[in-house]
């Protein structure tokens, strides 16, 4: 796809034949293999895949935190390979918002100051920065918690502060790496809804790398990453934990057999929960199943 075509489609992310290889010879690992990915403005793309499939590597490459071994990465038409370290920092600051698995807030700063800091780095200071931070925290439902330190906030609240921080400089692209992994199901659901709302109302592009099948329902596109390759189908080597609906490898040892069907769990606690009322969870897992 030419640059002109890219712009006519209003592409925010363009990955063309991107590969990432770690190590050499015997220790050589191909994390991404000739990957092509184009994402348009206002699109929400979910990338799923098992642990070690290269999801985080892909997010780091799109986020200008890691250079690909080969291939070209463009954000809003800018080729990242042509930018210096300092310009890459600026691009991350202005064009990309990050949401991590851990909220990664600065422990010494209040919720408001955590959001303000990113604005300050971008040269926005004083009242304007304060008002913007307060507005964003209000947007994520934390108007009453602006003066609290991260340690005084729940996991879900911290993640909402992280979302406000990601939105601070009005980036065109939001990258999220397992944003609901550390949250309970209810809080995780709220965060997913919030991200969906941001995508649709603010026309931002969102790329989420996750195991969480619930996010699949709100995405415009779901891509499967396995062995460093992206596809729109998933392989047969994975199962859904019927309790938490996480995608897990079938090699897991925490399994339970009900009426000749084998169910796989991400943890002992999910398996215990399942054994209390298997039918309830079996029905649920059927509803959430991904078609092959």
């Amino acid at each position, binding site marked *: 796809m030419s640059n002109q075509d890219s712009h006519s489609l209003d592409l925010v992310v363009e990955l063309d034949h991107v590969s990432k290889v770690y190590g050499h010879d015997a220790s050589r690992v191909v994390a991404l293999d000739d990957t092509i990915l184009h994402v348009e403005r206002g699109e929400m793309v979910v990338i799923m895949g098992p642990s070690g499939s290269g999801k985080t590597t892909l997010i780091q490459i799109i986020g200008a*935190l890691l250079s690909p071994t080969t291939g070209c990465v463009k954000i809003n038409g800018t080729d990242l390979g042509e930018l210096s370290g300092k310009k890459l920092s600026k*691009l991350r600051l202005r064009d990309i918002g990050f949401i*991590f698995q851990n909220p990664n807030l600065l422990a010494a*700063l209040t919720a408001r100051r955590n959001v303000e800091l990113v604005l300050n780095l971008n040269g926005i200071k004083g009242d304007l920065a304060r008002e913007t931070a307060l507005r964003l925290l209000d947007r994520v439902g934390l108007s009453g918690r602006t003066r609290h330190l991260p340690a005084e906030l729940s996991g879900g609240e911290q993640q909402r502060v992280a979302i406000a921080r990601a939105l601070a400089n009005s980036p065109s692209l939001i990258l999220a790496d397992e944003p609901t992994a550390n949250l309970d199901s209810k809080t995780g659901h709220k965060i997913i809804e919030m991200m969906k709302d941001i995508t649709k109302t603010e026309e931002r592009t969102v790329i989420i790398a996750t195991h969480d099948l619930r996010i699949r329902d709100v995405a415009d596109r779901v891509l499967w990453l396995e062995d460093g390759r992206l596809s729109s189908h998933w392989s047969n080597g994975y199962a859904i934990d019927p309790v938490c609906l996480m995608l897990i490898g079938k090699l897991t040892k925490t399994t339970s057999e009900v009426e000749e069907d084998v169910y796989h769990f991400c943890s002992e606690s999910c398996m215990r929960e399942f054994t209390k009322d298997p039918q309830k969870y079996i029905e649920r897992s059927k509803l959430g199943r991904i078609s092959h």
Partner: protein
Amino acid sequence: MSLALRNLYHQKSKVAISIAGVTLSVFLILTMSGLYLGFSTMMDNMVTHSGADLWVTSEGASGSLHSPSLLPLNIRENLSNIEGVDTVSPLIRQPLSTTLKDDTVLLYINGYDTDTGMGGPWSMASGNSDLDAGEIVIDKVLASQYGYDIGDNITIEEKEFKIIGLSDKSYIMIAYIIFLSFDDAKSFLLEGVTNYFLVSVADGFTDEEVSASIVDTITDVSVSTTSETAKAYKDEVIGGFIPVFWMLSGIGYLVGIQIIGVLIHSITMENSKEFGILKAVGATNFDLYRVVAVQAFIISALGFTIGSIVVPVLISIIQTYVPEFVVEIDLQMIMQSSFLGTLTGLLTSILPARRIAQIDPALVFKEV
């Protein structure tokens, strides 16, 4: 600025310990410099407050405190007759190792001409210095250590004197100065000799002119100006200690750098992940370096400022209980301390710069 301050506030106890460490370092620096200044001033006082313009010694004697100068008393009249000489006074300054209350003590006998007052006490703590025969002024540190007071009698080498005053700034690290009339002091020296003649120069003459005339007129004598003699005193008594003073001050400063350096390094290491977060969201290495530099500067400035305020007060309290702790602190020293504080802040902020540059922003993707 705000992040640096809040990081420090977040680690209050660690910062407080570091500031206490820097204050101790300032204590060491100021004490060493203050001891140097204290003894230097005292040596200066011994000469510059004598009222003399010229110091006459036996030939070859340097004019210093330990000089083996011995001059016949009978040249006093010859000196008085030299053109340009206004006043001539003999002065005995003679070390004496003696026993006081079963303790061996080194005294400096300072026997001066009570008529002219030249070479008499330069600073009194209490009492008076109008000595008559059989009276003495002793150093206040000696008085406090051996339990003497004004009105008491003190026996020195079987001679008894009545204490009429206590002198200040007359403790010279290894010895205490006692002041006697010249006639009383003569009994501690050979008959018919003195150590110095102090000469004041008449109006209309220069020190150089009179000095030259004395050397031309009287054989086997040397003449030094007051400033030359003061320098000789300082060089002899303090000169040997200067390398030690500077070395200990240097150690104090290095201890300060070490404390701040360790703290800044430790905070940087502890905050590696947070710096990684900042890098990931778009902060440059320079942004992070600025945070570290401000942290280092704040700790240095606080440590050195608190030290500069607390240490002089602390020294003053110590001196109340330990009078021989002869430490003088002046504004210049405090300014130097502040300069060192600024320098320390800059130096210690350089240390973690490499570490910051190496922080991988991808750290933030690893779950803790």
